[in-house]
């Protein structure tokens, strides 16, 4: 029963993804696909945050930092030359393993950088480690203290990438190479790969959605929801609430980092604004509007709003829009706008039926 619900949902979404691509092709607006690709990757962050906020009931105001950690790690490892290190004994072993690769840089010189696969893996591991170290003490804090701790953490990461030379300071990192996933599928920004990248981005996003849908409908999902509804009682039922919260937090951080890596390769670079508080708050706003614990709602809302934002529909009021959304949703419908709407529908049909 549950399996068919998930399958139906995913198939419908996949169909929509295909239809959108075909429509843009027919309308000659294939450049829309670029924003759709970016929207997909940002939505992955929102989905992960949904798990943390909507299910485990923990707030994170610094999630953009994890996205940035993934992206920057990938970017730096694949653009810095490690020729010195590659010459050493350990370096030669890594080269043999394929961790280091040689490639030509823009000026015809030889660079020894890290293979994108290895860089991706290192980004995941680094982010998981940091998320664990931050989450372990932070998740023991209550509500507003947790909010401030995560906000503070996010700002620290932002300041580090903004102020460090190795991270390109305010210019960020550019020149991130394409990533050959498999023959015929290259993760990069060139228009010839655009359609393939679109399907890659959405394929990954739908995969993440499926994993999370499975998770929330399982014992783990129930444990998280029970922590949200009554942490003391959840403890009394034998649930190690601290560990579950931490696992959800680290898992969502790794998802964000993965999205960061993939988008960085697509964009060919990353900048410090990806780590900023504005982005973090934006993710929170998207989770809230989607309906805190509504994964599908979060995905749809995030895609639509991010797309509009990237295409510039909000003009110079871009940040303000998300600020207003946040205020409106939290004031009027903190559990997400869909529940009052659904309740209204129910009331309507009941009245009609008599």
């Amino acid at each position: 029963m549950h399996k068919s619900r998930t399958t139906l949902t995913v198939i419908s979404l996949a169909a929509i993804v295909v239809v959108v691509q075909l429509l843009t092709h027919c309308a000659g607006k294939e450049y829309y696909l670029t924003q759709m690709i970016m929207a997909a990757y940002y939505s992955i962050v929102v989905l992960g945050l949904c798990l943390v906020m909507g299910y485990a009931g923990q707030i994170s105001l610094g999630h953009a930092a994890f996205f940035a950690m993934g992206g920057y790690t990938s970017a730096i490892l694949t653009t810095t030359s490690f020729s010195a290190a590659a010459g050493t004994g350990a370096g030669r072993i890594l080269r043999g393993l394929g961790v280091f690769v040689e490639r030509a840089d823009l000026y015809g010189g030889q660079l020894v950088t890290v293979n994108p696969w290895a860089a991706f893996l290192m980004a995941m591991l680094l982010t998981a480690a940091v998320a664990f170290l931050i989450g372990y003490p932070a998740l023991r804090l209550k509500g507003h203290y947790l909010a401030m701790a995560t906000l503070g953490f996010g700002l620290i990461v932002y300041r580090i990438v903004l102020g460090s030379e190795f991270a390109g300071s305010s210019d960020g990192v550019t020149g991130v190479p394409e990533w050959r996933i498999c023959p015929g599928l290259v993760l990069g920004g060139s228009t010839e790969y655009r359609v393939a990248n679109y399907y890659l981005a959405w394929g990954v996003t739908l995969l993440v959605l499926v994993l999370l849908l499975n998770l929330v409908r399982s014992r783990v999902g129930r444990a998280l929801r029970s922590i949200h509804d009554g942490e003391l009682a959840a403890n009394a039922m034998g649930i190690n609430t601290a560990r579950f919260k931490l696992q959800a937090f680290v898992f969502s951080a790794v998802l964000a980092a993965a999205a960061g890596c993939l988008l960085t390769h697509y964009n060919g670079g990353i900048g410090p604004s990806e780590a900023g508080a504005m982005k973090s708050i934006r993710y929170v706003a998207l989770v809230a509007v989607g309906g805190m614990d509504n994964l599908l709602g979060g995905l749809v809302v995030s895609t639509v709003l991010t797309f509009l934002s990237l295409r510039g529909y909000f003009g110079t009021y871009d940040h303000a829009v998300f600020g207003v959304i946040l205020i409106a949703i939290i004031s009027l419908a903190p559990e997400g706008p869909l529940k009052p709407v659904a309740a209204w529908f129910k009331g309507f049909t009941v009245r009609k039926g008599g």
Partner: protein
Amino acid sequence: MALLDVQNVRHCFSGLLALDKVTFQVKEGQVKSIIGPNGAGKTTLFNIVSGIFPPSSGSIRFCGDSIAGLKPYQVARKGISRTFQNLSLFLRMTVLENVMVGRHIRTRQGFVSSALRLPGQIREEKAMREAAMVRLEELGLAAVADVPAGSLSFGQRRMVELARALATEPKLLLLDEPASGLNTREKEGLAGIIATIRSKNVTILLVEHDMSLVMDVSDEILVLHSGVPIAEGPPAEVRNNKDVVAVYLGGDFADASN
């Protein structure tokens, strides 16, 4: 060997002595009640046994292992489950889901197997659901299985909490004022339920104010007054204990013995 062995527990809250020299045992298969006037320290004792906070001093052993100072989830894993006086259901989850949370410690599937929906996880999930339904059927709640717990009546919520606690398959069940808020009919039902639970080899320790229920179901009663035990024994003995009668001013006991 006693199932639960409490020795010399003493507890202070910022200088206020809540419990002192509390020593008692609970034997396997027993139904033991803790009674005493308000403020006697009964709930504090429960909170200490179930791990919500550690005692200032003293020892608590369960099946021979020391459990004083363990966290609540560790205590639960040892085989002690509890209900709460003020009810602590997961109100936004359905009744069935609440009871399935009770099955948590008897199951294993984690993040990876759940996300990937491995066959073992699917099987276990089905088993959890069935076991939870059985618990609900036993307590006559099968009809409301898919209703959000928050929309039930108080009496029904009590039953759901009980089902949830039983779903953990505890050796020792702590019931915190199970009769409070129930009407007479519901209380009579409760006595029957306690007897049924006991017949399944679950030991019960309960805190209660309702004297007739206590006299009816208990094998032994422990009386606390101002945090100190003043009597312990079978109902008939405790009922006639002069100190106990004095503490209660005879009122409750006069009613219960009629």
